[in-house]
Each structure stands twice: as C-alpha cells, then as structure tokens.
C-alpha cells in the first residue's frame, strides 16, 4: 500500500515532462551522455518519454482501480449487509452478475468496449473499471457477511446505529486489510491490461508516451534501435515487479502489533528454529 502511495505521488509529481520535443537531426541515436536512453524515430528523448509514461500507464491504472474499488465496496458492503428474503434475492442476482464478470478475460472486455466506443483512453479506463469492480464486490460481500455475525455489530445495532453508520464506521475498518491486499494485486493487473490494450492500439494512442504504445511503435525499429523496445519494456516489468513484491503484508493485524513489545522477539526466534 505504501508503494501505491509512492506511485500516486510520482504520478502527481511529474506534471509535464518535455516528452514531445522532436529533434530530427538526432533520430534513432543510441544511448549517450546527452540522451541517456537514446532517441526514437522522431528524435524524441526516450528517457523523457519513459518518465512521462508513468503518468499514463501507472496513473490511468490507478484511476481505474480506485474507481473499481469504490463501486465494488459499495456493491459488496450493500449486498453483504442485506437481510431478509427479498433483499437476499437482490443480493443473489447481483452476485451472479459478479460471478459472470469475474469469469470474463480482461483483455476481451477491453476489446468489447473498444468495439462499442472506439479505441482511446476513456474507453480503455472504462473497460478496466467495468472489469475491476467485480472482484472487489465479491471480496467485500464475503467479508461483510462474515463481519455481520460479529458481536460488535450487534452491540452497535442495539445502541441504535443505522446500517450506513455501522458499515462505514465498524465494518469497513474491520475488512480493510484483505481489501487493501486485493487493491495492490489488482493495480498490477490494471497497469498490465492497460499497457496491453495500448500495445494493440486500442488504448492510449501515440504520440502519447504510454509504455505499451511506445513498445508497439518501437517494435518496427527493434533491430536498428533496440533501446526503443528495451526501455518501455523494462519500465513495465520494473513497475509490475515492484508492485507484486510489495503485495505481501508487512504490518501485522492490530492485536498482534499491540502485543509486539512483549512477544515479538520470542516468537520470531521460535519460528526460525
């Protein structure tokens, strides 16, 4: 989660890199002191474009996942909380839609949305969000159903708290851990799908410096200027590797963190031995 925050900072902090400046005298220059990662077929600095691409590839992925998270949480918390026969029918219907969406391949949905709306940035992000809400909804639904049975929910209810208050103040913090994990995992998926769509020409369009689109453009020049392919590919792999390695929880859940001053030493040596 901290890494996600870091990426968000970087996305906001790299406002306008001069990624579009062309220099026809120095086309397809190999990496040098002047252009650390060389230049492309229009003489644009590859390093500047890769850095500028953070905004598009990572930034748009982040937008899509945040949108998915919000929709998924609302749906999941809502259907998880509903009780009684009629409400349960609604919840079952919503959950079967969720099951259907989860079963669909992400890239295919991207294709379908591009088929309907035409290729572009907005359709690509819509496709990611259309796909993305379902896993969050499923997870939040299951966690909410489990949390509803807890005594502290009963206590809050008997004090007269309404459903929205209970869900927001009591249930949401309690289910935040797994949701946070899912968020990080889905973020990687969203970034890769977005780059894949752009690679196919269905997402972000050139000359915008998106990594997938850059890779597709650079493929034509792969033999004369391999840095055009290597740089965006390395950027994608670096980001997805960083994100997936950060996936494992570092912090312990609350009670264990409390107990740390007394227990942590003993338990850690025990688990090693």
């Amino acid at each position: 989660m901290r890494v996600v925050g870091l990426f968000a900072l970087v996305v906001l902090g790299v406002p306008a890199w001069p990624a579009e400046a062309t220099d026809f005298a120095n086309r397809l220059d190999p990496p040098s002191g002047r252009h650390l990662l060389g230049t492309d077929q229009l003489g644009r600095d590859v390093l500047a474009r890769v850095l500028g691409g953070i905004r598009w590839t990572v930034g748009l992925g982040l937008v899509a996942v945040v949108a998915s998270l919000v929709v998924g949480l609302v749906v999941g918390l809502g259907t998880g909380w509903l009780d009684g026969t009629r409400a349960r029918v609604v919840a079952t219907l919503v959950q079967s839609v969720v099951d259907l969406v989860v079963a669909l391949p992400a890239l295919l949905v991207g294709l379908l949305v591009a088929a309907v709306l035409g290729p572009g940035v907005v359709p690509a992000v819509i496709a990611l969000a259309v796909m993305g809400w379902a896993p969050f909804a499923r997870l939040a639904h299951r966690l909410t159903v489990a949390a509803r049975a807890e005594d502290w929910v009963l206590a809050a209810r008997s004090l007269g708290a309404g459903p929205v208050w209970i869900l927001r103040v009591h249930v949401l913090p309690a289910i935040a851990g797994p949701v946070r994990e899912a968020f990080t995992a889905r973020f990687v998926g969203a970034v890769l799908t977005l780059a894949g769509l752009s690679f196919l020409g269905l997402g972000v369009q050139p000359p915008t410096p998106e990594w997938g689109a850059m890779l597709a453009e650079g493929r034509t020049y792969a033999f004369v200027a391999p840095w055009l392919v290597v740089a965006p590919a390395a950027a994608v792999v670096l980001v997805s590797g960083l994100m997936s390695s950060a996936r494992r929880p570092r912090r312990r859940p609350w009670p264990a963190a409390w107990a740390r001053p007394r227990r942590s030493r003993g338990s850690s040596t025990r688990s090693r031995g």
Partner: protein
Amino acid sequence: MTLPVAALALRRLLLVPLVLLAASAVVFGLPRLLGGNVTRSVIRSRSLASAPDPAAEARLAAELGLDRPLRDQYLAWLAGALRGDLGRSFTTRAPVAPQVLGAAGVSATLAVLALAVALAVGLPAGVSAADRPGRVADRAVDRVGSVALAVPEFVIGPALVLVLAVWAGWLPALGWGTADRAVLPVLTLALFPAALAARLVRAETRVALAHPSTVTAVAKGLSRRRVLAVHVLPRSLTAVLAEAGPFLAGTLGGAVVVEVVFDVPGLGRTLAEAIGSRDLPTIQAGVVVVLGVAMLLTLAAELASRALDPRLR
C-alpha cells in the same frame, strides 16, 4: 451452496442463452447507436477516400442494411443466427460464421497446448517444491515464478522472438500451421499459467502432505513417488482447476497480444482487426462465440473441481 450438481449445472446452462441474447443485443445496438458513422469507416477501410461521396455512402448503407430501423436489423440478424448464418463481413463480404469458427479453432489449439505445457511444468514443480522445502524446485518456484508472474505477454513475446528466432535462429519468428511455428506463441502463453499453477499446487500440496491420509499412505509402505502422485496430487488441484477454465476461455478470445505478435490467425486477432475496421458482423459473431465458450468452460471447471474434491459437494 448445497445444490445438487445436476441442478446447478442445469440452472447455469439455462443462463447461457439468456446472457448470450443480452450480450448480442448490446454488441449489436451500442456501436450502431453511439459509434458514429459506420458506413464511412467501412468505406475508409476499403479505399483511401477521406471524405466519400454521399451517394456512395447511401448505397453502401442500403447494401449493408444499415439504413433500416435498428430493431429490424437486429431481428433479421437474430433470425439468421438461429439458423447458423451470422451474416457477411462488412469489409470482405465473406460469410462470417466459417471465418470466426476457423479462427476459434486456431485459438482453441493454442489455448489447449499452452495449458498442457503449463500443467506439465507447473504441477511437478509445485509438488516437488512443497515436498522438499528450500531446495532447488522451491526456490525456483519463488524466484523464476515471480519473474514469470510480473512480465507481461507483450514483453516476453518479442523478447523470445529476438533471442530464439532472430539471434539463435532456432525457430521461425512468425506464422502458424506447423509444429515449429507453434513453439514460441505457446511458450509465451504458458509462462504465466505455469508459474501460477506451480504456486497454487505448492500451497495446496503443503496442506495435503500434512493430512492424515498421507500418513496412512506412507505407513502402508508405498513409495514416495506413488504417495505424491496418487494420494497427494489429486488433493492439490482444486485451485488450479478453478483457474484452468477461465484461462482457456480467456485465451480463446483474449490471446490478442500473442496472436498479433506472432501473426497467428486466431479469434483474438480477428476480433481486434474487426474492431479496427468497424466490421460489425464479425465482432458480433466473435463475441457470441467467446462468451458462450467462456460460460461453458467456467461451468465445466466448477463441475470438475466438485467431482475431484469431496469437500465441495
């Protein structure tokens, strides 16, 4: 869910035509309503004229049936689809059904081969990693696995082409139809599921090894290999099976990247090209085929894991 298997299967099977009907209506209607001028993009895909003559545009609209009310167009398409006639391509005017089915066959071959390779590598790696923690297989599943899970297809595909086809010259870089041409696309597709399968099987095998039935099998005097293959492995396949159905379905229509990179005439590439030229009949047919197969495969995977694992019944 404590429904009997047959009832579950029936309910889900009944859902398939309903979803297909709804999906076909959406895929049929939305591009025609929102997608701007379809005739103009079709003309553009056939000729270089940027601003075509209005008379030609009107003629083409009449020829493609685009001048009729939307409802009539859809009902005509639906009536044809029920007889197995999915219309003619806007761009090539060839019948769509045989074209899409042929492409689906290519993609299905690709998907099945990739899954077979992934399981042939992933299952033994996962079992052996769980059996001997900390040894070569275990560390490989950790390290090679995290690389394989992090590198997307559009990076690994071109990289394999560059190394194995261009530099080493061992394999053809592009194409489809012969065994050596299938190697690179299948490898590219198999990498991710192989790593995933190894991880999932390792996790489940760890649990299965600690199960009393394993102790019994060892106590009977069975060989280590036999215990692993006959008693442990079947208990470790729940998660892999659950992922296999969606993988096959996803590869059938969604292996676009691999099909484009390696020039494989599969369904994903056909769909992507049809979207580029706004060839609506091809898009409709492809979507219906992919969705139908995806739903059936997900159901099949669910039934298979229920059959294998008594806890899910």
